[in-house]
């Protein structure tokens, strides 16, 4: 029961986080590629509820940051100009969930741009970029994981169920894939492909590349489950009654693999998000100016950014809850799977 509760807890956390990212247009106050050339490297704006005189306000407000005279990136708060944060404000147009045109944003302000996580070298709002970047990175991770699991399930069940030479060939290929230094393979694959690709093409390339590389491990796991499942009494019984291979796989064997697949999915998604980030970090992923988490972090490659603009690290921190959520989900799934097995087999078989 405990595992069920933690499972639900992680699912809720992940659900909330993903809703924010999916509805980035609403939660992000600005267009992620809009440059504000007057405000490069703007530090994060603090939201206040209490002003300098000690009065408490109901609406949060911020102070305008002004460039210090004669400097390029040193800002100071202008406390004479409090800016009230407005909720459900109209701003740049976007399409919610990709099709609902809207102009409403969760917050914003008339007087100045509110940049909760500061801005980058071109004055682009880091908070908006983080949310929009999440759409790309998470989608790449989820689609990539789906792709991998599909191949893994197919290869694993064929190898496990039919056995013989098919098993040998498929498993040797899988071992080959396991032995490959996949990061370098990704580089080679990406470098091999055409130079200038539109962001959309680049995205699908990445999904295919990362999804096509990692199928070996899930395939081996699935094969193991299939191997043991096909010897089960109820499977033999069904076969005895004349069930076809397709029916047996669909009705009796593949359902057995579901817990393995779910656990694998929860492990693979963050792993693939990281793969996308690695590619983008190294300039082989989604091309600028489209944001992705890797692109956000690639700013940190420069020493001057590392030591001068601490808020450029914030996107890395913001990714932590996502990964934590997925890994928590994976471990609770695993626990659930164990408990499920124990229930099914009964205490007698637990030796």
């Amino acid at each position, binding site marked *: 029961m405990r595992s069920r509760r933690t499972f639900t807890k992680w699912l809720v956390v992940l659900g909330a986080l993903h809703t924010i990212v999916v509805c980035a247009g609403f939660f992000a106050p600005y267009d992620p590629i809009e*440059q504000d*050339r007057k405000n490069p490297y703007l530090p994060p704006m603090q939201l206040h509820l209490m002003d300098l005189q000690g009065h408490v306000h109901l609406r949060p407000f911020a102070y305008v940051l002004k460039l210090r005279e004669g400097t*390029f990136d040193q800002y100071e708060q202008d406390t004479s100009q409090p800016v009230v944060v407005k909720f459900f404000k109209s701003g740049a147009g976007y399409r919610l969930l990709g099709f609902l045109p809207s102009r409403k944003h969760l917050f914003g302000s008339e007087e100045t741009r509110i940049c909760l996580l500061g801005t980058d*070298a071109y004055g682009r709002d880091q908070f908006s970029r983080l949310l929009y970047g999440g759409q790309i990175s998470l989608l790449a991770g989820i689609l990539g994981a789906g792709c991998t699991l599909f191949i893994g399930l197919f290869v694993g069940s064929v190898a496990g169920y039919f056995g013989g030479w098919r098993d040998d060939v498929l498993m040797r290929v899988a071992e080959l894939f396991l032995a490959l230094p996949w990061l370098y393979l990704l580089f080679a694959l990406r470098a091999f492909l055409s*130079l*200038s690709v539109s962001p959309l093409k680049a995205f699908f390339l990445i999904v295919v590349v990362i999804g096509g590389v990692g199928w070996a491990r899930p395939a081996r796991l699935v094969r193991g489950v299939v191997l043991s499942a096909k010897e089960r009494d109820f499977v033999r019984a069904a076969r005895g009654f004349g069930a076809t291979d397709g029916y047996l796989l669909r009705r009796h064997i593949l359902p057995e693999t579901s817990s393995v697949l779910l656990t694998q999915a929860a492990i693979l998604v963050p792993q693939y998000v990281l793969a996308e980030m690695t590619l983008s970090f190294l*300039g082989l992923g989604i091309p600028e100016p489209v944001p992705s988490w890797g692109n956000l972090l690639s700013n940190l490659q*420069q020493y*001057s950014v590392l030591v001068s603009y601490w808020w450029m690290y914030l996107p890395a921190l913001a990714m932590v809850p996502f990964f934590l959520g997925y890994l928590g989900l994976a471990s609770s799934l695993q626990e659930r799977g164990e408990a499920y097995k124990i229930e099914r087999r009964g205490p007698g078989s637990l030796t």
Partner: protein
Amino acid sequence: MRIRRANFVSYRMLSSFFLLLVAFLGHPATVWPQQKSVKDESLVLPGEVGRSGGRLVVSLRGEPKTLNPLIAADSRSREVIGVMQADLVHINRATQLSEPALAKSWKLSADGLEYTIVLRKGLKFSDGQALDADDVVFTFRIYLDENVHAPQRDLLIVGGKPIVVGKVDAQTVVFQLAKPYGAGERLFDGLAILPRHLLEKPYQEGRLGQIGTLATAANQWAGLGPFRMKEYVAGQRLLLERNPYYWKTDMRGNRLPYLDELVFLFVPNADAQVLKFQSGETDVISQLGAENFSVLSRQQKGYTMTDAGPGLEYNFLFFNLNDAGEKSSLEMRPKQKWFRQVKFRQAVSAAVDREAIVRLVYQERGSAIWGLVAPGNHRWGNEKLAHSPRSLDRARTFLKEAGFSWSNGPAGESTLQDSYGQPVEFSILTSSSNADRAKMAALIQDDLKQLGMRVQVVPLEFRSLLDRVTQTKEYDACLMGIVSFDADPNSDINVWLSSGGTHLWNPSQAHPATPWEAEIDRLIEEQMSARTFEQRKKLYDRAQEILAENQPMIFLASPDILVGSKNSVGNFHPAVLEPYVLWNVEQLYLKSLPAIGTR
């Protein structure tokens, strides 16, 4: 990554009568040369007298490939060779004028075709062997030998024919040119005089390329520069020691250089250079980007950062104007049709926000440019070139005049399309190792988006980028930068001439592709044979105007030369010409010598 001194195609030239005059009369404050004794005619350098001893450490981005000037092609090798070798006539990096070096004096014949150079007496190589006219004649013989493939050879072809070098007596050499040479004796700058006693045998055996490597024993290699080889540790450092036979002295007659040792530390990249300098491991730093400069400026502990002012680097965007004819891909043809229209290029130029580039890329430590002559070049820029500010309206007018129109795309954004209704979409190549240029490209991408153009930025490794631009010619547009190695227009000759290898938008043409390129060719060649600076300048100004009208290169910005040095380094006077901080290495000294054994 930049193209430096890539201009090795033959120079056709002319008389340098005027420059000669300027070298001697233009700077009356400079005292040249003072004779100490008949036996030893050391060059006396004006300036602060320093103290001898100590070791200066500088970092180098990677290892130099060789110490041999005959095969050195990379900038790191040239930087090291610069402090180990010397030339007959040298361009003073501070005044940008030519000065006597190994040559005590020179004379140009009235027809501008013959240089008579008189060497200093008592000159010795760093291994103690004396230098005479035979070494000079030998040096130019190998430079001009086709089988040696020396990069210097192209520089020494004047008027289509190699220079003829002859010995008059032990101290005098005569150089005969087929045609007068415009930049005059600046020709001799950077041409190291090589030791005949070490090179003659390898030369006859045809293995010149194998000597003067970093692994060469210290006694097997010699030069006339202030420092000589002492020790090389692969992957770590190169240790040079003072050349005791150096031919320059300070005002008090002390033999230069002051420093006992000069160390080049090999580091992988610019950031590592910054870290080494910040931690005090190196004494001077140059070629800094604006962002690293401001990081170092923020906490100047024991060192001083200096903005030496505008340099000679110019960054520009250019479109592929090559005529590939039948070979050009179907995808390329309509694009090139846009690129060939002057109005299209003018529109792009009008839409580029140069001020934003200077502010966001160079943090105001640079200048916007509208022509090829960078602001660090004080004598040759055309003052009359229009510095038109950014105007999207003007850009739209140009595009309308050229037959482009706008339509509303699926996302509600307006898209620029040509007269056939094809959307304007192209990619810009930049070097992936140059963060500054990648940033410029991102800004231009956004600028052009406002005109409805869809631009992709493609960062590419520099070598493959160069290969695409000059060999395969498969690209749409490219953002690049060039550093002129000299203030004289002849240093950029290969950018100007349509036959030049760095005439980047359409390199190495057999015949000028357009009337305006033909006109530029004519002006530049005429400029080389003009008799006075005013005449040359007038012709050069006109060439600059034609370039600005036709915009084959859309000039963007030029960064300042940003350097730093420890406060303990004396005589530190950074220049805007390469090598920025080591040009007067013989005069650099340490104000307080550390106790023995601490360094």
